[in-house]
């Protein structure tokens, strides 16, 4: 049975789609069969970040309404053949998704893939609830910033009470903290919450720390998930995340600011 992973956050703009794209592609590059699902009905964007926006013909809602088969709607990634994307619809109303029909789609996908990565919309409305309902694991994407941390905690509450696992009294959803847009320099200057601060507050295990990086914008500009930029710090950090999801123990990187050279120190560069 596939591992169903929801990438969620509560707050918008913290890096859910960037992270879904990078992690999905990373898992596929490791040889796993992966499907990425965009749950943001009405505001699809995963296709753009994945660079397949011009190949969208049918979408998630079409599949649910029986207007297309799952196979017709799935877009095979051009870079990695074991990766598929199920785009969200751009126009339909979000009430199209129900627990029953989403469950059916996930069940069908579960037989075909090793990983189902659900890119959640922001907020705590129906769409976000639907994205997390069937999850086995949750990647709680958080920025080191007060509103993001608070919203993440709200989402943790939802994971614990509103998911299928909670309703059926099964083993709870496995929660992972993914801290994004981290700036070690600002942490050292006392201007930003540190990894340990956020871990203390949310008290869930840390999956990864993605440093604030120019590579992320470049990646989305090009429609090439940042994990493909293997030279960039963000790309490397996402690679670590993928390896940890696959059970490896990897030391956390990019947690301290790069030391300044002697010249810039002397001349205050």
């Amino acid at each position, binding site marked *: 049975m596939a591992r169903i992973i929801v990438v969620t956050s509560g707050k918008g703009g913290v890096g859910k789609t960037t992270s879904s794209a990078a992690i999905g592609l990373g898992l596929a590059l490791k040889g796993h069969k992966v499907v990425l699902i965009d749950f943001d009905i009405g505001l699809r964007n995963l296709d753009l970040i994945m660079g397949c926006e011009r190949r969208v013909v049918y979408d998630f809602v079409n599949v649910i309404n029986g207007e297309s088969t799952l196979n017709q709607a799935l877009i095979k990634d051009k870079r990695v053949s074991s990766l598929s994307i199920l785009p969200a619809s751009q126009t339909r109303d979000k009430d199209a998704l129900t627990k029953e029909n989403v469950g059916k789609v996930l069940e069908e996908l579960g037989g075909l893939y090793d990983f189902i990565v659900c890119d959640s919309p922001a907020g705590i409305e129906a769409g976000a609830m639907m994205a997390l309902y069937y999850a086995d694991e949750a990647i709680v994407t958080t920025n080191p910033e007060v509103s993001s941390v*608070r919203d993440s905690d709200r989402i943790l509450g939802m994971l614990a009470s509103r998911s299928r696992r909670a309703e059926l009294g099964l083993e709870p959803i496995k929660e992972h903290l993914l801290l994004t847009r981290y700036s070690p320099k600002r942490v050292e200057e006392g*201007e930003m*919450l540190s990894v340990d*601060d956020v871990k203390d*507050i949310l008290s869930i295990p840390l999956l990864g720390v993605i440093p604030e990086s120019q590579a992320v914008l470049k990646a989305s500009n090009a429609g090439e998930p940042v994990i493909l930029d293997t030279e960039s710090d963000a790309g490397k950090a996402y690679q670590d995340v993928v390896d940890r999801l696959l059970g490896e123990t990897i030391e956390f990187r990019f947690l301290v600011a790069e030391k300044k050279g002697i010249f810039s120190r002397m001349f205050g560069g």
Partner: protein
Amino acid sequence: MALLDYFTRKKEKQVTTASKAKERLQIIVAHERNSRNKQPDYLPQLTEDILQVLRKYIKVSDESFSINLDKKDGDLNVLELNIELHDDNATN
């Protein structure tokens, strides 16, 4: 010792914005968690009683019934009942 005082005091005063953020978050998160976890003791019994009454009149399976007590902002509590009626109820 005025000089020494000056230096030590300065150090004490240096509360960073990050530590302020952490403190505020710890308080608000703890508060919100508390209100989240508070389900009243009477809820299970209430659920049972409501179901019993309903079943006097209509068929209700456990799956088609849900009850939720939600705290909205402020002092407002909302008790939400969801009952799915099956077709065979309509003919009665």
